[in-house]
């Protein structure tokens, strides 16, 4: 190959790059879903795509906030479905990025659990903009083989048996919620803490920092930290517990009595999506709230859907795994909300980390 040939190849590549998208024959309605990678596994969606003439493209988000920053900066209408947290929906609605959910086109929404039907979050003037989609809790996960007793939140603030072996998620909202729970600040005040309470939170968070091995950023990162023994106990998501148990590591999961953080993600349709794309988007929303998807999510996740559509198709053990055996447990969770002084919370969190 001489230089001229190389140039030809390069030019051909350029042409491919510029016209690539146009080559695809596009008979089906194409929609784009911005979502977490673990919610859009190919096998979860295969029945839906087989039954509908819809071509689905997925783009994956790193954090809730990155999703918002990207859409806020660049507009949301190039995406047909997004996956904001329930507590974050008001960001999108305040920025006028979403359109209300048309419940007539989402029959499965009737099966939403009461908690999600009643929540004021995700709604503006009675209209729902982000429909609860799946939910779970963020517990403490720990290496039962390396810890003497089941920990609670105090392990992050007191004693020094596990100094340098703990990890906390690098996320202001949850970090501060945990400190508040440890300090005994009730849920009713938690999101509207005054300066004095925040100062106290800051003080204990600084103590917490001195005990940490590191802050974790992604769940894959934390799983790796557990597996390598760098960390024995962390505020976590659920997946490492199951994943590492499957590898034969004796993992424990603790749900502290001081409170457990509950979270819920919604699915929302950006403003400007219309016509065939809107139809396809709602069809997908309905599927995501339906029994087929719910069952696969419960087994594969394991995560709980926000509707009862799949509940009866699951064994008790499976139900227990995703906290829907006893539905009253939902009321004991501290559901994430968006604090009005969120900017101050983030500043506080950065001050602690930089101290």
């Amino acid at each position, binding site marked *: 190959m001489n230089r001229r040939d190389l140039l030809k190849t390069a030019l051909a590549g350029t042409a491919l790059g510029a016209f690539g998208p146009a080559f695809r024959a596009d008979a089906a309605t194409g929609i784009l879903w911005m979502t977490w990678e673990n919610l859009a596994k190919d096998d979860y969606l295969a029945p839906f795509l087989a039954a509908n003439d819809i071509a689905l493209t997925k783009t994956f988000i790193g954090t809730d906030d990155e999703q918002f920053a990207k859409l806020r900066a660049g507009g949301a209408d190039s995406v047909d479905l997004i996956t904001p947290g329930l507590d974050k929906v008001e960001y999108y609605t305040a920025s006028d990025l979403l359109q209300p959910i048309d419940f007539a086109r989402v029959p499965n929404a009737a099966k939403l659990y009461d908690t999600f039907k009643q929540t004021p979050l995700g709604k503006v003037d009675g209209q729902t903009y982000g429909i609860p989609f799946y939910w779970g809790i963020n517990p403490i996960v720990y290496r039962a083989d390396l810890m003497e007793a089941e920990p609670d939140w105090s392990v992050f603030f007191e004693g020094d048996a596990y100094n340098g072996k703990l990890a906390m998620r690098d996320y*202001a909202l949850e970090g501060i919620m945990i400190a508040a729970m440890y300090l005994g600040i009730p849920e009713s005040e938690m999101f509207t803490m005054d300066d004095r309470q925040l100062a106290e939170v800051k003080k204990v968070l600084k103590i917490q920092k001195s005990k940490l091995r*590191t802050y974790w*950023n992604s769940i894959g*990162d934390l799983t790796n930290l557990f597996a390598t023994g760098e960390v024995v106990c962390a505020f976590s998501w659920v997946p490492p517990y199951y994943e590492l148990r499957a590898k034969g590591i004796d993992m424990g999961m603790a749900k502290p009595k001081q409170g457990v953080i509950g979270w819920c993600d919604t699915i929302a349709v950006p403003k400007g999506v219309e016509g065939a794309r809107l139809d396809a988007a709602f069809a997908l929303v309905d599927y995501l709230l339906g029994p087929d998807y719910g069952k696969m999510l419960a087994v594969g996740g394991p995560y709980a859907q926000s509707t009862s559509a799949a509940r009866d198709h699951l064994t008790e053990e499976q139900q227990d795994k995703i906290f829907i055996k006893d539905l009253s447990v939902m009321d004991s969770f501290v559901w994430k909300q968006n604090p009005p002084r*969120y900017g101050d*919370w983030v500043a506080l969190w*950065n001050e602690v980390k930089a101290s």
Partner: protein
Amino acid sequence: MRPQSAGTWLALPVVAALGALCLAPLAILFAYSFFSVDFVTISHDPSLKNYARILQSETYRGLIARAFGSGLLVAAITAVIGYPVAWFLAKRAGAAKTMLLTLLLVPLYSGDLLRIFAWRVLLGAEGAINRSLIWLGAIDAPLQGLLFSPLATHIALTYNYLPFMVIGLWLAFESLDDAWLEAAADLGAPGRDRFRRVTLPLTAPGLIAGGLMVFVMVVGDYLTPQLLGGASGVTVISAINDLFGTAFDWPLGSAIAWTMLAILMLCFGAGAVLIRRSSLVAEGA
């Protein structure tokens, strides 16, 4: 066509591209840095509030200072490590030169994230280095401080940016005529003096260029400190990221970014002046 006007024509598309895709966005950020934010609404009343906040905040001032400190430190370390390597590549490597230069760059293509996790495997409490040291009997218990510490961060930062320093220095050594060193030896300068009085001044442009590259990249790197630095791995860039992403305080984020940019530009300006002063190459005919 006069060469000068040809140059201007050649520069034009480049200036257009940079103007549209770098200057314009930065100008937008500059405007934002004077605004303020209320929940998700950006209010367009200009004020210096954000800059005042940066000046008053010990956190942001400390983070900026720490970033520049790290930048200087890593630039110095890479210079010390890279100097002999660049010399070797330019003066002793012969036909293997291109190959070695390439091999120096290739590890960077493996991707930031994966390399960071490789460092974890190396530096971790149960990692390769601790295990080797225990096996050798040098230590009894694993060194916890190897990973999730400023040490780990700076090892990885040095690793990440060493090749850039070597490239900068290598270019300087390529234009260093051996005859000058021979002349210095001939004039009676002992080895150390030859280095101090001839080699060092003549390679200074490369040292400064490489140093500035490394400095800037270290200041801009947030992933490495975040994933290897442990609980103290916060950087000013990750704080800016937080302001843009998490807190939706684009105006404050823009103000910090512009503060950093202004300081960096000053550093670069000073560096450019230094390079010009130390350069022996006369401009023009």
